[in-house]
């Protein structure tokens, strides 16, 4: 198990597979350059991303704002109903703008940033610790959590659980902020075991009750906008968790989770599924868990072994994963060498496709896999492909822009009229020689979009389409690209 892939099986296609899964795919030139590094070099290049400078600045509002929090608190305490309403509206508007900006900021990092694997892991953690702006209601908190996911993207399991658990977004999201020893709130205690670290069947209801007591004291300082430990809220009595008894606190409890034999199995199965696209076999899962434990629960060496392993390049793994909407959008932008649509448009697309960043459907995150595909989302992908390729806007309706009042949608629609999507430049992706030969056009585009060939009949259909054009225009070529993206084959990677 987990033997390194032999060097004679490392080639362009294998490199493309690695780049698609450990990142968001890339141009033929990028795949070629990765393949030339050899498998170890390629994996190191993607994984040791700290060596590559990342100059992207944080959003300028990504810091605590105690004055503003104080003002909010004052108005809530002493303001008139009218003042409160006004402030609330102002605050909601500001938060809406910021979360839209944050979505665009993150997508931009994925689409053009120099560290695709770091972002891909951040996206994994976001889906894993699925936290939504709908309840957190503070874009700064959402950014902070996202920053942890990035900073500890390939870091230590226990450290990550501790930092995420003590971060404001999670404290609000699963109500830990309100937990007191008189009334321990069990929400976080339950989900950290059920959804984040162990899975059902590996703890009892009693463990939840006791763990909730251990976690009391973890709280949120709303004015400082940061974690605070409140000794008076903490239950100092004895607790029994996983059959062990002691005066445990929250840190002890997280340590006990990570020490639980199921923990490494649980998280490595989920990571494997995210990158490989299917559940690992029990034997593979054991091997993956052993690898994580052997590396002190650090994800980086674990991922290095995983991305080099024979299993990762096995036939039932390659080109058998449904692209998530983010993978579809970001990957298309990368592979077509175009620009990400403006944040509002990207957001509208991802919402329609079922992956609204910073607003996962619930604490379980996105189900992923084939559930990304419905008749509606498939047609939407096909139509959004036209927008990306040809630079025309997708068919969005006011309702796509959320907001409870219709006014927000209307406003967004008006703003949208002024926006344009990039579109693809034919000169960038086809050489003049390729451009003159329909067969070469199809071959080149297939290599770019699929790194393999479509079915013979599909190639013929495309050939027919191109041959039907007496004088081929760039627009015809763009239509051909859009058609290739409007296939079941383009939805997998």
């Amino acid at each position, binding site marked *: 198990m987990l033997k390194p892939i032999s060097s004679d099986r490392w080639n362009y296609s294998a490199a493309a597979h690695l780049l698609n899964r450990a990142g968001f795919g890339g141009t033929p030139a990028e795949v070629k350059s990765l393949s030339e590094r050899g498998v170890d070099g390629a994996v190191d290049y993607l994984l040791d991303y700290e060596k590559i400078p990342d100059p992207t600045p944080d959003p300028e509002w990504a810091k605590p704002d105690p004055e503003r929090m104080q003002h909010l608190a004052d108005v809530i305490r002493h303001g008139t109903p009218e003042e409160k309403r006004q402030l609330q509206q102002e605050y909601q508007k500001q938060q809406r703008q910021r979360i839209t900006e944050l979505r665009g900021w993150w997508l931009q990092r994925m689409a053009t940033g120099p560290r695709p694997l770091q972002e891909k892991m951040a996206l994994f953690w976001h889906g894993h610790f699925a936290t939504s702006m709908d309840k957190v209601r503070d874009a700064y908190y959402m950014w902070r959590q996202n920053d942890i996911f990035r900073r500890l993207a390939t870091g230590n399991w226990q450290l990550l659980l501790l930092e995420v658990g003590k971060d404001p977004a999670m404290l609000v999201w699963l109500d830990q902020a309100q937990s007191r020893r008189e009334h321990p709130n069990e929400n976080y205690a339950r989900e950290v075991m059920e959804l984040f670290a162990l899975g059902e069947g590996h703890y009892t209801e009693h463990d939840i009750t006791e763990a909730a007591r251990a976690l009391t004291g973890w709280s949120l300082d709303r004015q400082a906008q940061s974690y605070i430990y409140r000794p008076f809220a903490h239950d100092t009595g004895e607790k029994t968790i996983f059959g062990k008894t002691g005066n445990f606190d929250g840190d002890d409890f997280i340590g006990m989770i990570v020490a639980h034999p199921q923990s490494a199995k649980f998280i490595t199965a989920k990571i494997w599924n995210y990158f490989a696209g299917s559940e690992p076999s029990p034997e593979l899962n054991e091997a993956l868990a052993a690898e994580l434990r052997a590396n002190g629960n650090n994800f980086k060496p674990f991922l290095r072994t995983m991305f080099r392993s024979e299993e990762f390049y096995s036939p039932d793994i390659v080109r058998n994963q449904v692209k998530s909407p983010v993978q579809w959008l970001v990957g298309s932008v990368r592979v077509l060498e175009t620009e990400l649509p403006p944040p509002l448009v990207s957001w509208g697309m991802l919402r329609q496709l079922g992956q609204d960043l910073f607003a996962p459907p619930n604490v379980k995150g996105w189900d992923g896999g084939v559930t990304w595909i419905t008749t509606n989302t498939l047609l939407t992908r096909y139509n959004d492909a036209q927008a990306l390729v040809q630079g025309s806007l997708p*068919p969005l309706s006011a309702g796509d822009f959320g907001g409870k009042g219709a006014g927000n949608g209307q406003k967004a629609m008006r703003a949208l009229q002024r926006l344009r999507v990039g579109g693809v430049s034919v000169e960038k992706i086809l050489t003049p020689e390729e451009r003159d030969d329909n067969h070469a056009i199809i071959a080149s585009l297939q290599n770019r979009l699929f790194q*393999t*060939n479509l079915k013979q009949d*599909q190639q013929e259909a*495309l050939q027919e389409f191109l041959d039907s054009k007496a004088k081929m225009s760039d627009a015809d070529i763009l*239509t051909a690209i859009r058609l290739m993206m409007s296939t079941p084959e383009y939805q997998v990677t």
Partner: protein
Amino acid sequence: MKKEITLQTRREFLRRTVLGSALSWTVPAFLSNTFSALQAEAAASATQITTGKDSTILVVLQMAGGNDGINTVVPYANDFYHRARPRIGLKAADVLKLNDNVGLHGALKGFKDLYDGGQLSVIQGVGYPNPNRSHFRSTEIWQTASDSEQVEKHGWLGRYFDNACAGADPAVGVAIGNQLPEAFFAAKPKGVCFSNPQNYRFIANGNETEESYKKLNELETSGPGMSSDDSAPDMQNSGGSIAMLPAGMPMTGGRAIDFISRTALDAQHSSDEIRGIAARVQNQSVYPNSPLAGSLKLVARLIGGGLPTRVYYVSQGGYDTHTNQIPTQQRLLQDLGDSTKAFVDDMKAQGNMQRVVVMTFSEFGRRVAENANGGTDHGAAAPMFIVGDKVKAGLLGNYPSLAPQDLFQGDIKFNVDFRSVYASVLENWLHTKSAPILGRQFPILQVV
């Protein structure tokens, strides 16, 4: 009789489903492979296969945001009510009286007409144990029909599709909107959703593009699937095709691509059919001008056009009335009553009303006491409405007590579990066993 239904549905099945209609086209290889398996599954299904033009239809209407049930079905003669709501309490003159104690909000004229016509059932005090006051979580509980403490992966309608609709047309469930509601989430995804039938299609800039799209999405698989060594054109600088990966590698990518190919066929069929119906069938009553009315108009046309759908899902938002509730709720309930009434008139004109039942729900009701902003905060139990020719019309159950000592944390207590209502609709209207869908047997109410 039972046998006849099976035969009828088998024929329907062959005629209408993707598998059946694929027979007249080019049958992709993976479809012919799975055909017999699916057919066996359909035959083994405990209840009738749920396609066909003559089956009963359920329209689920979500009132999103948490409707204030107390100002919807109003205990206008109750002192506790007026004491708790000095500003927003509705007076006897403001309500449409159903009896000496209870009346409908004055804006619900449409519902009052239905009530008087014996087509409206009002189930009072519906909720669930340990109510959750989060929109998100409580909506999820209603959508998945789970216990309050339990997170359930699939929706209650999704489980209905899984249990009772194997082999049915993909359009057995239709949600009007961009996203499939969580209620539709299923082990074997089924159901289509769209907001605008005009956009529910492949948008092509020319006939040739449209033709090419169809070819690219309908082709019979040639051999093992994508690519093969000899047909692969040279890839410049590629260092070899993907076929140089481990020997014997299937190029189709296995099941993921099969699933998507099938969905692509479903999309093509249903979008043609739905757009065809939407263009052909006219509404036969006058609806208000609102998003909800737009959704119901569309549902009416799809029913009129004979789409083999058992469950339609529409949604109306905006009920989260923390501040200045009176005008907001007035507008929403007016829309709700008038739109529903127009839909019923439309169904009647089509001759389909005896086949249709509309059921409303909201994730929670609201606190008994009004708040300081002329609104109400998140609460618990609330009424549900069921509309249809064959419903047990009238006020069902008892109005939960508003006496302060009877409240739980300021909320009225439920006396009907919403899953009892679901169970009743599943058993008495959709004619399927409810326990496998809802996880256990809930009491059946005589509502339909």
